[in-house]
């Protein structure tokens, strides 16, 4: 459904203030529907033409004990009339559904920010669970904020009283009541959400009626109760012309894989084992059978990668997707794909580790695992997406490299990119690069390990008469691929496999620098810190600081000019959500000093964290 960017404004009796960028966060129990509420707000903001960026933040437990601090689920939306690249540092408004949610999130609210709370949930028992000794709504501790205590539960119950729903079912509509209030506050239209409700609950008319009533009641409550002295307006963003949709990283990855298969005129095979935060790629692809996509939910991570390799041997565009723990399990099979030289894309949606770690939170601490994490000399290209939409581009790029160089390729994303949403300018399929894949059919002079100019061997597939051959994990003769234990042959094969991967650098675009091409400081990033760094560097440059930004999407091999780019700057700052893995890699590859900015809290960088570090580094030069 296409809509124009014209913003519907409310018949507003309060004064409206125009803002450039706003960040709001919805927080409540994990059963309160915060993810749904946040994604509806996101969707509506996208449709009215804002640039946006989101950060869903949910606990590992599906339903932690109600009212507990550990059970708080949140969804942050940053929306703007200019280009933005992060979910926002400080909150303009916090919508808290219970005391626990208030307690765990209040620190992020701007001084003087808007605080909407569901006062019905501030019972003694909930206050106790959150560890409040007195009721913050009454003890003056929230005086620094614009507090709006609304009895959401009671007002919602009244609003949906005549829909015939049970008290429990009626209570489930209260997030829509609150969403209605916030829609009023930021002058958002109701139509996208009412349309979504109608589609989602089409089989239950009473539920449609109740949710729509709750949404409208919240909106009209904002209007008629006149509790807000001001409302806020964020005009549409000035972004490049074109047709847009909202997309998360996992959706973009899945669509990129489907697109890659189409661009290669081949079929996609995705084998995976359920794991947070990668499972949505499996869900997304399982819906795509009408694109000849086959998905296989394997019995474990190992079987998943093995099935993908088996399908690749059969000629599939083969993918396995997982998160860090799954990569650890797949390591041996990835080594087999390296020695068999079969194309395969392996996706790691990184999460907090080690071990089960922070399964629902983001981190980028699997870089060294990606580059080194297999036994033997086992080189493999490693790519990383920078934004949610970039997952689409990099999934295609991973397949281009995998098929052209007959190699497994690791694509790194992370939990923040995977679940966060951004507007995406929809590409035209005609404008996407074709992927050329050849399967030999001529038995004359066919040798399974005979290499072309890219050092790539032929991808002959079962079903082709005369090209029968055997692949395996034992070292192979450099031409025939037959098992060969000769010392010189093994050394030659190790060098050849390494040279093949190194040579991919010739086929990569050069690294570009955003800002001055030389100067005092270069901030070098990979993965999702791209967003916060982009804005931080922009803001510092507006203030006249000598700082530039370069972003790596190719981690192994690196682009040919990386060393040269680094040499043009006095200092190199590398922000990473790990303890400095790229930093250590850069030092070892280029013998340059680096300054590492590390954050490992399961949360993405804030703009101000990077800005502060930039100021500090520059002040010490």
């Amino acid at each position: 459904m296409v809509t124009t960017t014209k913003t519907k404004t409310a018949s507003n009796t309060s004064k409206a203030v125009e803002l450039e960028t706003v960040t709001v966060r919805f927080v409540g129990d994990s059963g309160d529907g915060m993810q749904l509420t946040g994604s509806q707000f996101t969707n509506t903001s996208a449709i009215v033409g804002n640039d946006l960026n989101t950060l869903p933040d949910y606990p590992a437990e599906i339903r932690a004990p109600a009212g507990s601090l550990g059970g708080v689920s949140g969804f942050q939306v940053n929306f703007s009339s200019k280009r933005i690249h992060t979910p926002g540092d400080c909150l303009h408004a916090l919508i808290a559904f219970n005391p626990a949610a208030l307690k765990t999130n209040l620190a992020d609210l701007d001084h003087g920010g808007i605080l909407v709370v569901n006062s019905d949930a501030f019972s003694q028992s909930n206050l106790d669970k959150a560890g409040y000794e007195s009721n913050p709504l009454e003890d003056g501790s929230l005086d620094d904020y614009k507090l709006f205590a609304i009895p959401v539960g009671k007002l919602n119950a009244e609003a949906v009283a005549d829909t015939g729903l049970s008290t429990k079912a009626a209570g489930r509509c209260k997030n829509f009541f609150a969403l209605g209030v916030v829609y009023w506050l930021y002058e958002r239209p109701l139509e996208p959400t009412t349309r979504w409700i109608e589609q989602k609950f089409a089989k239950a008319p009473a539920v449609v009626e109740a949710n729509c009533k709750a949404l409208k009641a919240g909106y009209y409550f904002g209007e008629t109760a006149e509790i807000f002295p001001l409302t806020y307006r964020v005009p549409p963003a000035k972004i490049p012309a074109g047709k847009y949709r909202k997309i998360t990283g996992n959706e973009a990855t899945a669509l990129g894989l489907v697109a890659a298969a189409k661009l290669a005129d081949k079929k996609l095979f995705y084998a995976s084992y359920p794991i947070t935060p990668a499972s949505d790629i499996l869900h997304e692809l399982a819906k795509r059978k009408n694109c000849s996509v086959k998905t296989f939910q394997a019995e474990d991570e190992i079987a998943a990668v093995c099935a993908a390799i088996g399908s690749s041997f059969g000629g599939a565009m083969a993918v396995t997707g997982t998160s860090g723990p799954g990569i650890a399990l797949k390591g041996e099979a990835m080594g087999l794909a390296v020695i068999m030289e079969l194309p395969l894309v392996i996706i790691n949606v990184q999460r907090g580790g080690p071990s089960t770690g922070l399964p629902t939170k983001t981190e980028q601490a699997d870089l060294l695992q990606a580059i080194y994490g297999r036994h033997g000399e086992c080189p493999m290209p490693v790519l990383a997406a920078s934004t949610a939409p970039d997952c689409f581009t990099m999934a295609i790029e991973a397949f281009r490299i995998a098929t052209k160089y007959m190699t497994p390729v690791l694509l790194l994303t992370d939990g923040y990119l995977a679940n966060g949403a951004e507007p995406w300018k929809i590409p035209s399929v005609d404008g996407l690069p074709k992927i050329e894949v050849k399967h030999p059919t001529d038995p004359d002079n066919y040798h399974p390990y005979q290499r072309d100019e890219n050092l790539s061997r032929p991808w002959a597939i079962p079903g082709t008469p005369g090209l029968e051959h055997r692949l395996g994990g034992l070292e192979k003769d450099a031409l025939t691929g037959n098992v060969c234990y000769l010392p010189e042959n093994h050394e030659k094969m190790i060098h050849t496999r390494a040279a093949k991967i190194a040579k991919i650098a010739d086929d990569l675009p050069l690294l570009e620098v955003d800002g001055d091409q030389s100067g005092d400081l270069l901030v070098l990033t990979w993965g999702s810190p791209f967003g916060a760094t982009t804005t931080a560097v922009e803001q510092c440059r507006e203030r006249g600081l000598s700082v530039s930004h370069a972003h790596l999407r190719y981690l192994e091999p690196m682009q040919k000019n990386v060393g040269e780019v680094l040499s043009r700057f006095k200092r190199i700052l590398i922000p990473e959500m790990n303890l400095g893995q790229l930093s250590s890699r850069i030092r070892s590859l280029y013998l340059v000093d680096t300054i590492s900015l590390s954050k490992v809290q399961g949360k993405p960088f804030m703009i101000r964290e990077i800005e502060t570090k930039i100021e500090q580094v520059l002040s010490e030069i």
Partner: protein
Amino acid sequence: MSSQIPVEAVKLTAKQFASNQDVRWCPGCGDYSILAQVKKVLSNIGASRENTVFVSGIGCSSRFPYYMDTYGLHSIHGRALGFASGLKAYNPDLNVWVVTGDGDGLSIGGNHLLHAIRRNFDINILLFNNRIYGLTKGQYSPTSEIGKRTKSTPDGVIDYPLHPISVAIGAEASFVARTVDVHVKHLADTIERAARHKGTSFVEIYQNCNIFNDGAFQYATDKQTKADNIVELVHGRPLIFGKERTKGIRLNGLSPEIVTLGEGVTEDDLLFHDEKAREPSLAYLLSRMHHPEFPEPIGVFRAVERSTYEDVLQDQVTAAIERGKGDLDDILNEGDTWVVA
């Protein structure tokens, strides 16, 4: 329902399935016999080289693909079925064989065995059971008998063994059989039946490792004793065994017992084999008959029809395409979109 094996116009000979690689099993190994019979079966069923794929894991048996002039994958330890599953799911037209052993298939690869069997891919699993680790030079395996002294169990094995046929039936395999490396005709017939079965065929082959576990199955192979120690399963026929074929198996409640024909017992009193029974209970009961208490059954324990994973998956793909072929442009433009002028 039989397996749709891609057929050659003119049948290839067994020899034409041999690769140019030297076979490197130890002289006297039971694997040679199995290799010869598999090639013969491929010839009999009219298989083509280009559509046939042998997949293996790690172990002595897993060198098998190198000796076949077909497509082949010699993969990693225990995971052959993972590779075979992906290959067959992607391309249902291929004739896929998995060669594994008691260590590869039941120890490190036990999980995959269960899941491949329950999914019922149309593949043939040949599990060479020699009750020992050969390639790593003589440690006990999950099928080694309790008390067995090996390099890793100098005081005797203390874990109870797995019985491959019981495991396969427990996972509700649609085809389960047992045969013996040196019973050449029975071996060939059993493998051929497995090849022609549509669905996962699981064949346990008693295979002698003459280096690390010589004579493990002597009771079942020795000319003097084998008639008393094995009973051949034939669908619809009573279980009769013994040199003079005077002994039989009768059901006493839920337990089998050995009876002698003639002494008030007729053939009609015996257990009649029904490989097509929908319920696997009878087949499981047979799989529990172990030497020396009972003659061990060889032949087909179970052969039932079930839909295969790859066919149903392909049907779902075909049905989805019939409902409306996916167009990439449409997919990229799904959901709410907006235009910025």
